């Protein structure tokens, strides 16, 4: 694949009009929250910059990130996005297979060393020398480290690459490990979510192409523009939360009225993502709008912070196999209360005895 045409060249080859191109630039500027003044800058970048080669690797994962990515609506449709990038290697989307595919990988590594973006979906298992995930006849860990060495920047797609996700949940038999623990010398942009929102994925890539740098990140390495607020902060059910109106059961009247799902264990208040603003499937809906609480899929350890339908996390203690903060707390209060009652009784007894001794001695 040739990587030296500009994006605009590719668009025109595909029969996209100048007018559609300008519309795309405006929509992209708006979806990134940049304002109208940036549309011409995006257009300029698209007309002058070479397409950036992208290598998309798949480790231990379920391909939901790829599935989400190809459903992006803004910026436009999937084939448009695939033209913006020079997607040189993607096991899901590429036509080549077998030795041809591996040859494309080596070609990019050789021709674009230090230039390409490495997008990683999934994570490497470290147990048994990485034998739980084999790509092209060798452990995925090897392929990942080889390709990371020549990358300009690394994008960690989804919760697998960012946090480990389900395969890293306790007891993590394969020792699945998020990529920032095996790649330490490259900037990593984490796009957590299971999967991430399509427009978030394409938005981040567009930002990087437009400005030639990685977007501003928060302390966990997530782009601030999409992960800067909790779902709760922009949830349309928030007024019910502030009023004290909660669904108490999945089939009660409050649930039908669309009250807040906080008591049903909704993780909106602890989850950083753009679901309540960008929403899913071209802005149609998101879990809370569909009547189900957020499960916090873009947060670290969300599988272990269960159960999904309870407010407080279960805590495993040596004494109670499954407990939560309130059960432990109330248990401690009961023990302390009993001890105080017993100690009061013993103290009263001792005082009575010493008083009678004192009376006797007098």
């Amino acid at each position: 694949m040739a990587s030296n045409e500009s994006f605009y060249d590719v668009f025109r080859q595909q029969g996209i009009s100048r007018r559609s191109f300008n519309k795309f630039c405006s929509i992209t500027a708006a979806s990134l929250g940049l304002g109208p003044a940036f549309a011409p800058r995006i257009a300029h970048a698209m007309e002058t910059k070479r397409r950036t080669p992208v290598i998309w690797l798949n480790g231990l994962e379920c391909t939901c990130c790829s599935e989400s990515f190809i459903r992006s609506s803004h910026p436009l449709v999937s084939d448009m996005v695939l033209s913006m990038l020079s997607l040189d290697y993607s096991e899901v989307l590429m036509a080549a297979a077998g030795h041809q595919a591996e040859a494309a990988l080596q070609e990019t590594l050789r021709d674009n060393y230090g230039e390409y973006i490495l997008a990683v979906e999934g994570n490497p298992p470290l147990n048994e020398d990485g034998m739980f995930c084999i790509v092209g006849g060798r452990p995925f860990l090897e392929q990942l480290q080889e390709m990371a060495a020549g990358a300009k920047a690394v994008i960690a797609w989804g919760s697998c690459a960012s946090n480990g996700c389900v395969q890293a949940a306790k007891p993590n038999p394969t020792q699945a490990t998020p990529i920032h623990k095996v790649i330490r010398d490259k900037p990593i942009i984490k796009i957590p979510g299971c999967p991430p929102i399509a427009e978030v994925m394409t938005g981040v890539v567009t930002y990087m192409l437009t400005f030639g740098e990685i977007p501003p990140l928060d302390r966990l390495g997530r782009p601030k523009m999409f992960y800067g607020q909790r779902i709760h902060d922009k949830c349309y059910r928030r007024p019910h939360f502030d009023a004290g109106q909660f669904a108490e059961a999945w089939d009660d009247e409050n649930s039908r009225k669309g009250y807040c799902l906080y008591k049903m264990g909704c993780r909106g208040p602890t989850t950083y993502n753009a679901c309540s603003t960008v929403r899913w499937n071209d802005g149609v809906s998101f879990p809370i709008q569909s009547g189900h609480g957020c499960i916090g899929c873009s947060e670290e350890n969300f599988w272990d912070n269960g159960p999904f339908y309870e407010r407080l996390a279960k805590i495993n203690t040596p004494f109670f196999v499954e407990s939560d903060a309130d059960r432990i707390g109330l248990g401690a209060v009961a023990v302390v209360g009993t001890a105080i009652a017993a100690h009061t009784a013993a103290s009263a007894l001792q005082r009575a005895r010493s008083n009678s001794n004192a009376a006797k001695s007098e």
Partner: protein
Amino acid sequence: MATTSETKKAPSGFFAKVIHHSTEVESPASKIYVYEAPVRFWHWMNALCIVALVVTGYLIGKPLPSIGGEASDHFLFGNIRLIHFAAGQLLIVLLVYRIVWAFFGNEHSHQLFLPPFWSRKWWGEVWHEVRWYSFLEKTPKKYIGHNPLAQLAMFTVFLLPLLNLVATGGALYAEGEGIDSYWYMAFGWVFSVYGDSFNVHTVHRLSMWVIVCFTMIHTYLAIREDIMSRQSLVSTMISGWRYFKDDKE
């Protein structure tokens, strides 16, 4: 009562005797000024804040039964959270005030912050107190300030959990204020210690229960000591004066 000498201690100088050992009374006057007004003010204001915070905090984790009507007519949960946040911020201001006072106040004012963990004698006296509370010692020792066991408890199950609550509480409040806020600049590091927001909530709630247990024991022992030991407890935190009930050594 043979000798009643009222010795009001003047505040010691800057940083003077910052490292303070619990002083066992050698030949106590029967009435000593222990807790200065700022300490007493802090104690009771802090107690009020903690009661407000525990009640509202419990309700934030386990909300009251849902109310009906229009969302725009009610702000019940919002008000509960408002009280929690206001009391929490007041507690932080009071805590800062208390820490500053520890540098200016008398020798008892910094007892809370620096138990002499390195002192063998002090640990010996801790053990003596444990035996007293286990009914193994006939007579308690007299202390002007906290007894060593109380000092140890104040530090480990009151001050440390309280600081933990301030840190995690500040971090959770910072989430609402936004990641570019001053609150996040001050408390964002907490997420590097405890991980995700959900964990910080869990730690915050567990710490609350530690403070609840502490408050129960603290109240019980203060009343018990008032009755059983040789010195005043509850009234001392109101008036500042510690009374000794006998003048035996």
